[in-house]
């Protein structure tokens, strides 16, 4: 399978299941946690795809599967034209030059017994690459690039703050000039004033090296800041995927509406006037997910059809994919109207974020800035069905 021009990552019908074993003398598999169940998307060159979802949504498993840190159960992963799911660990080595990862916890992602120089230089050693000018020169240049003092080459991670450790992790990730970096919650462990520094650094590096990011995070404001397109996950499935401005201004999936309405906005006037869509209950168990649409047990739109038929991810507008039988452009009356101060203000609807009416027109899509338009189109559902084994 080949990739289209300008496409760095193509994930088709990715399924990652974890076996559930019984306790006892002879452990045997009694069930499966379907952490990721049929997810398809692409990431274009120099593009950032934000992947959001709550804990248990499977977003981290997607991130780890993409780099084969966990072996997917099924589906295809194509990185820069090469299908990798069938490769052995050894055969994956060349792929790792192209795709790297930045981890959430900068305290656990660095070996405390290794110097910073050793940590950032490790990719060169492992891949057997001798950078021009030697490893030390290359590492110090990287340190300088990510905002660390190159003189700290021989220091240990415990001598650095959380933000600086994340910079070390970023320097290590870009050492081999990869094309794709999978970022798993890269700023969620950092203080807000440091978060902004790291987000800006990631953006600068993207411009400088043409990096593509798969940016996994739960913070919707952070994802909006850095992503060109955003995909929303729930219980192992993609619910909605669209260019950034579309997701935030004109979402169509009830789950996306709920997520957006739950994020408190740092403005007391706006926030105290906003209403929330309260989701009832908790995430269902991924061992025994609901029939039909996995979100239906908490959905304000749910009808009988939702429990019977799994909604496919369909392209409702160019580049805007939604997996829902009853997508909503405007929130129905009675949903999320706990506080309705904003109802009186023109241009703000119940979600507090979308334009009144909320109806998406193709004109609106056309008015998106050029960089918000998807460079590559994800697989259409029909194609996905055809390709699945």
């Amino acid at each position, binding site marked *: 399978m080949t990739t289209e021009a300008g496409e760095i990552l193509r994930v088709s019908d990715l399924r990652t299941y974890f076996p559930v074993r019984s306790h006892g003398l002879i452990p045997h598999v009694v069930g499966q946690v379907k952490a990721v169940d049929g997810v398809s998307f692409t990431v274009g060159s120099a593009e950032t795809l934000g992947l959001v979802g709550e804990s248990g949504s499977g977003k981290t498993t997607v991130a780890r599967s993409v780099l084969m840190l966990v072996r997917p159960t099924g589906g295809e992963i194509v990185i820069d034209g090469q299908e990798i799911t069938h490769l052995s660990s050894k055969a994956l080595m060349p792929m790792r030059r192209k795709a790297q990862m930045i981890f959430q916890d900068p305290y656990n992602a660095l070996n405390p017994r290794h110097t910073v120089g050793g940590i950032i230089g490790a990719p060169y050693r492992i891949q057997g690459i001798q950078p021009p000018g030697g490893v030390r020169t290359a590492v110090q240049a990287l340190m300088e690039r990510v905002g660390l003092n190159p003189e700290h080459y021989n220091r240990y991670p415990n001598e650095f703050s959380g933000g600086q450790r994340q910079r070390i992790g970023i320097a290590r990730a870009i050492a081999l000039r990869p094309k794709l970096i999978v970022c798993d919650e890269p700023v969620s462990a950092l203080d807000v004033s440091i978060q902004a520094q790291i987000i800006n650094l990631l953006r600068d590096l993207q411009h400088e090296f043409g990096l593509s990011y798969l940016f996994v995070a739960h913070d919707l404001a952070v994802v909006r800041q850095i992503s060109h397109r955003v995909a929303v996950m729930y219980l192992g499935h993609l619910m909605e995927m669209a260019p950034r401005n579309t997701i935030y201004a004109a979402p169509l999936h009830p789950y996306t509406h709920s997520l957006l309405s*739950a994020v408190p906005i740092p403005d007391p006037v706006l926030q105290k006037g906003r209403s929330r869509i309260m989701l009832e209950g908790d995430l269902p168990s991924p061992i025994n997910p609901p029939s039909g649409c996995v979100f239906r047990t908490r959905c304000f739109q749910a009808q009988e059809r939702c429990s019977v038929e799994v909604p496919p991810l369909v392209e409702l507008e160019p580049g805007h994919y939604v997996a829902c039988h009853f997508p909503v452009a405007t929130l129905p009356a009675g949903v999320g109207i706990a506080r309705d101060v904003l109802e009186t203000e023109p241009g703000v609807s119940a979600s507090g974020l979308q334009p009144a009416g909320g109806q998406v027109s193709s004109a609106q899509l056309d008015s998106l800035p050029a960089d918000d338009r998807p460079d590559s189109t994800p697989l259409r559902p029909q194609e996905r069905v055809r390709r699945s084994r």
Partner: protein
Amino acid sequence: MTTSGGPTENPFLEIKDLAVAFPTEDGLVRAVEGVSLSIERGRTLAIVGESGSGKSVTAQAIMGLIDRKSAKMTGEIWLDGQELVGMPADELQALRGGKVAMIFQDPMSSLHPFYRVGSQITEAINAHRKMGAKAARAIALDMLRRVGIPAADRRIDDYPHQLSGGMRQRVMIAMALINAPELLIADEPTTALDVTVQAQILELIASLQGEFGITVIMITHDLGIVADVADEVAVMYGGRIVEVAPTGVLYAQPEMPYTLGLLSSIPRMDRELSERLEPIPGNPPSPISLPPGCVFQPRCTYSDRVAAGACLNVRPELLETSAGHLVRCHLPAEERRQISRDVLNVLAGGS
């Protein structure tokens, strides 16, 4: 609201010049210094700050959780006419979980994994009241229902690991509220939770506050949560309060450069996207070697506007700039307000 030194009309909680320091091998950690604040009954005060700002230590001091053997603690904490700092341990014990209760960030490590949630709640009841097991269980069950735990009569016999994060946090809240506290301290109560669950928990705390008339101290780093729940806000940095204001004022007319820096560095969904965020440069100070002048000076972009290096050498006082609005900054008030207007203007998208 808060006044430093001046007469107050008997606030419910008043902290005067609180200082907490921990001697360590590396030196004295000055976690909190010169913290003074007060809250009226039934109000919500948010304490905002980043890690190491001293916000959690302040909360622990109010709860009497600072170990006097290993820490140095000075100042006064007045709760409804009682002074807490010099209070004997057994009286503090009676207060904790009774009149004053706390919700912690991580419900998994705050609940005992070996005991059913019901028995952990009845234990909290029995610590303060004597009653039969059946009556205690009935009260616990009623409280679990009130905090919105579905099938509470079944869940009461669950172990903590059988509950989701949101449900555990509800159990924590039920446990905190079981003895009808007058002051509830919530230390990052939703940080470990997803946004949709966070929304549920914040609504729950607000509705219980309305129902029981509880005074709430909400400790958080999230300016969105502050905007949502707080009546007043105290911003902490480097172990001290650097700005206090009614919530509306703090967001509309912040004056301390650190507060402005915080507001500029967060990505927000209600604003036009800007290409870059405006982070605060540098890193927070070490509480072992705080800067000699203003603790924010090394990261402040405006300190060069103050003559004679005052920011470098002199600790600024927390002074009132308008009614209920106190700022710890050497910049002249007029200049601070101008800077604030300029920065907020840029944030709002120019013009």
